[in-house]
């Protein structure tokens, strides 16, 4: 066997990995896959902020809607009071006229 052949055989010979090699490779691989702690926290923070914004937005729009509904209701109430006042005064006026006509009719009948 020539010295070259000897060296080649030696270099191609199967060698056992050092103790704990597989574990250390797996540990490194999983560390590379998982984001760092602060990145994860930022993601959660962003999601939480989005949820807070959405809930806040819905609540605010409900408050605005309720206030608008109340304002519309108050406006309608004012309109109703005005309408009833006008109707009442005109009905009283008509009633007075009606009473005056009746009175005149009675007077005319008694004269005849």
């Amino acid at each position: 066997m020539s010295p070259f052949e000897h060296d080649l055989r030696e270099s191609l010979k199967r060698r056992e990995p050092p103790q704990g090699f597989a574990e250390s490779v797996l540990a490194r691989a999983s560390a590379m896959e998982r984001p760092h702690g602060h990145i994860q926290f930022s993601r959660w923070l962003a999601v939480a902020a989005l949820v807070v914004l959405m809930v806040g937005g819905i609540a605010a729009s409900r408050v605005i809607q309720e206030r608008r509904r109340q304002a519309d209701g108050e406006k309608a109430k004012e309109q109703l009071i005005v309408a009833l006042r006008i109707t009442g005064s005109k009905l009283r006026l008509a009633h007075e006229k009606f009473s005056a006509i009746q009175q005149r009719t009675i007077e005319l009948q008694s004269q005849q």
Partner: protein
Amino acid sequence: MRKLMLAVLMMAATTVMAQQLDLKSLDKFADRAKGKTQIDLDEATLKSTGGLLKDKKADEGLAKKSTENLKGLFLRVFEFDKKGAYKLDELKPILDQLKAPNWTPFLRNKEEDEQTEIWMHRTNNEIDGMLLIAAESNELTVINVLGLTRPEDFSNLKNFGIPNIKE
């Protein structure tokens, strides 16, 4: 196209029916009037307003009582700054609508340049509405009240706005 026209006609008919009368012909007075009040309260608005009226407040308590049966209140008031700003003939489009069989006159009074009319609307021979026209020399009022069925509804309306001496 026919379907569309039919739908438009049906919508228009519903609007007129909801008011018993079409008050649109009164819009022409708005330009001449120095003051105008237009109030349209349909049944849904009256119902929602009823919940906001407080019994303890005299005005609101009576308003609640007066409107509990009402199905609509449509009012137009035009104030003119001079006499003769409008002619009674101009009310013809409204008076023409009263020729329908479900309208019957209750009070018609004409004195010089003033005219007061109260008409009752009936459905199935039951009173269910009223129209009041008060045409004064410098003011014109037209009120259509829907859902007036009981005598106390009229008296509640008539007494509205009279200060209560007991208070």
